[in-house]
């Protein structure tokens, strides 16, 4: 207890953290006991529950927004790491390999570094607009995730105009970029902002038109409904019914996300960093994150519209059935009785020893401890895989998330490899591509789709059973 009597300045760092926690703990306990004794806490708790019950939609909305905001940060970190590592492989480099195993922490440390930097506002900048621009850009990117279905039943909100909402809110990102370009009071920023505006306006139209083909096929704007309509095997995905639409959508999405070869808005060899030239610190970080969140959502939307969303490419149960393997994932731990306890008690140590044994026997230079550690890690890996398989078989939303994120990150990897391979296109060439090729192609796609729907589905036509 001599710690408590020591003056604050003489405490170690750990003490400075632990001692306030002790006091806080004691205080909370006292308050809890007092609250329960007087009946205040149960009353407040009941009130809270009633409020939540009465406003379940709003609570769900707030919960979804919070979860998605929190989701974007690790997603961006993963994509940044993928970008660092994949481009390094394309370039025949090693890439980050110092921070954590394979450099997995490098993107997180990038984020922390950005947080720690000075937040600078240039003289002559339009301060309110300058401050607001990164927020608008980032929120525009994050808000679109709300309507994307991650798995059966797992989405922020199932709007019946989901696709329209997506395009409308994604347009907000452009406003943020123009705001940044204008408010920075810098020639390069202005050029970058205008380039971003020109590029995104050119891309927005073919992007929307390419999605119209899917809307014609499904007759709905709800993204959740569109995914449900692609259920079945990979052959039911709309990419096979809409190949032209998919190509147009993919190119327009690349422009929309501002990725190489269409990243002239922040062309580093020409206009320094474009709209982000004057930004530093976390304001730059918001642009930085927004770029990667944009990449994620644009890949997610492509997956949702054309690649089956969270649908698995094949039904694994049918495949197993054909192979004659019967898998029954339903597991009732209660039926094991005392056996469960023995299982939990005996299996881990025996399995660790068994997994460590070959290393210890075959690698003469490894100590027993090292083999045991490797065995422990291997055991964890095996258990994780087994639990993953069990969860995949038992819960449809786990399978949905697996396939959705798998497809999305594959597309992200494709974007990243494109960045490593292709040079940058020029702004006039981009506008030429968008207006002269993508829009006519998207219109042609709509025409073909509509004609095909009429020919194949119109009941009054003779081959459809009409007369």
């Amino acid at each position, binding site marked *: 207890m001599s710690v408590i009597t020591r003056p604050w300045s003489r405490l170690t760092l750990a003490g400075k953290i632990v001692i306030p926690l002790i006091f806080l703990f004691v205080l909370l306990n006292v308050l809890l006991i007092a609250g329960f004794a007087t009946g205040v806490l149960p009353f407040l708790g009941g009130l809270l529950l009633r409020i939540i019950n009465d406003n379940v939609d709003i609570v769900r909305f707030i919960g979804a927004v919070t979860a998605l905001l929190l989701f974007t940060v690790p997603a961006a970190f993963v994509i940044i790491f993928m970008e660092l590592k994949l*481009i390094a492989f394309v370039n025949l480099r090693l890439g980050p390999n110092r921070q954590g195993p394979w450099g997995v922490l490098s993107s997180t440390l990038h984020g922390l570094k950005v947080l720690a930097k000075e937040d600078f506002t240039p003289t002559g900048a339009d301060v309110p607009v300058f401050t607001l621009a990164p927020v608008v850009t980032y929120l525009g990117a994050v808000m679109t995730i709300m309507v994307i279905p991650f798995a059966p039943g797992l989405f922020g909100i199932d709007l019946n105009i989901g696709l329209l909402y997506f395009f409308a809110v994604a347009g907000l990102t452009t406003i943020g970029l123009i705001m940044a370009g204008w408010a920075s009071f810098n020639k390069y920023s202005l050029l970058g902002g205008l380039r971003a505006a020109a590029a995104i306006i050119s891309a927005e139209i073919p992007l929307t038109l390419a999605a119209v083909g899917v809307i014609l096929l499904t007759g709905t704007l709800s993204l959740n409904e569109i995914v449900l309509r692609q259920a079945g095997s990979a052959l039911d995905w709309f990419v096979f019914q809409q190949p032209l639409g998919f190509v147009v959508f993919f190119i327009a999405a690349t422009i929309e996300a501002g990725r190489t070869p269409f990243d*002239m808005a922040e062309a580093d060899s*020409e*206009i320094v960093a474009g709209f982000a030239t004057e930004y530093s610190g976390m304001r730059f970080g918001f642009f930085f994150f927004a770029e990667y969140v944009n990449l994620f959502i644009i890949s997610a939307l492509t997956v949702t519209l054309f690649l089956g969303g969270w649908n698995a490419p094949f039904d694994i149960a049918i495949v197993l059935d054909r192979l004659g393997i019967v898998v029954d994932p339903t597991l009732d731990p209660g039926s094991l009785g005392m056996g469960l306890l023995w299982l939990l008690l005996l299996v881990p140590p025996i399995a660790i020893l068994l997994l460590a044994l070959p290393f210890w026997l075959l690698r003469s230079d490894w100590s027993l401890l090292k083999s045991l550690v490797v065995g422990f890690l291997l055991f964890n890996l095996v258990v994780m895989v087994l639990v993953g398989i069990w969860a995949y078989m038992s819960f449809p939303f786990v399978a949905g998330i697996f396939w959705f994120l798998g497809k999305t990150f594959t597309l992200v990897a494709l974007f990243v490899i494109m960045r490593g*391979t292709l*040079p940058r*296109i020029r702004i006039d*060439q981009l506008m030429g591509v968008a207006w002269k090729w993508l829009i006519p192609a998207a219109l042609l796609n709509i025409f073909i789709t509509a004609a095909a729907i009429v020919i194949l589905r119109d009941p009054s036509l003779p081959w459809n059973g009409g007369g």
Partner: protein
Amino acid sequence: MLRIVLKIDGERIVDLDPVLGYLHRGVEKICENGDWHHAISNCDPLEYAASMFSEAMPVLAAEKLLDLEVPRRAEYIRVLAWELNRVASHALFIGWLALDLGGLTPILYGFIERDEIVEMLAALTGQRVLFNYLRIGGVNGDLNHDFMSRLGDWMGHALHRIEDQQRLLNANEIFVRRTKGLGIVDRDIARRTCLSGPVLRATGVPYDVRRAHPYSVYPELDFEIPTREEGDSYARYLLHLDEIKQSIRIIDQVLHQMPDGPVMAKIPRLLRIPPGRAYISVESPRGQYSCYAMSDGSDQPFRLRIHDPSFFNLQAVGLVMPGNLIADTMAVMASLDPIMGGVDK
């Protein structure tokens, strides 16, 4: 270290003004204050991507003033070093061109190529970039085993690498559209601005100092002067690829014809260059690298005027750029390939 002031109308360039002098070190004046041997290392950083050529300036000038016969083995080693350095410089050129157009990968591939050569030359000369290898009357040190084994390795896959580069860029629609028909330097502009090197040869003029004013042992070697007719950035890019292949051909011949013998001529320890004036030129990766030297009979150069092709190639920018877009500045600048160390001296 080049500043370009653009006058633009939207994205279109109306006028362009390169601002020079950010890298000016007064190399010519420094050379006058040391003796002729010091001038070699002082001239090294002029053309830092291919310093084997700029360091040849005082060497060749002094040899001409001395009327000195350089041992044949030394001449062959010089040609070997020059051509290796040319390949290194050209490999970097291709990478920079792609990088300035936004391609991240070719620069790394170019650096792999360059790094192998630079390590090889480091085994020969002791330094990676500023070699300080040529000497008045020969070269500093004979070929060694380390160098030869690295060279053998490199010769085995050099052409294959170049073909890899070609596969990445030649048929790349974006790259071709960004460079073809852009920054066209015609023969008139070339004549007015004293262009030389690949920029000139891309306009169809087969002018190469190695053939036009032969020096060293180039007359004994069999190689072609590749030319292109278009004069645009893409033609300059293709020309660099062709020149790499020709350089590899020269290296192959040099290795087969390499004579035995000493690598240094007998020169006095305190070297006094007889008074007079001499003009010499070599074909550097960027064009005609020449030098007009004056000696007053002392051991120091009286004047060493160095003509750097980058400076003259840079002049063409102001003539070909107006009317193009901002993004094209990079494609044209990179394809004219000025080395600012030589421009500002």
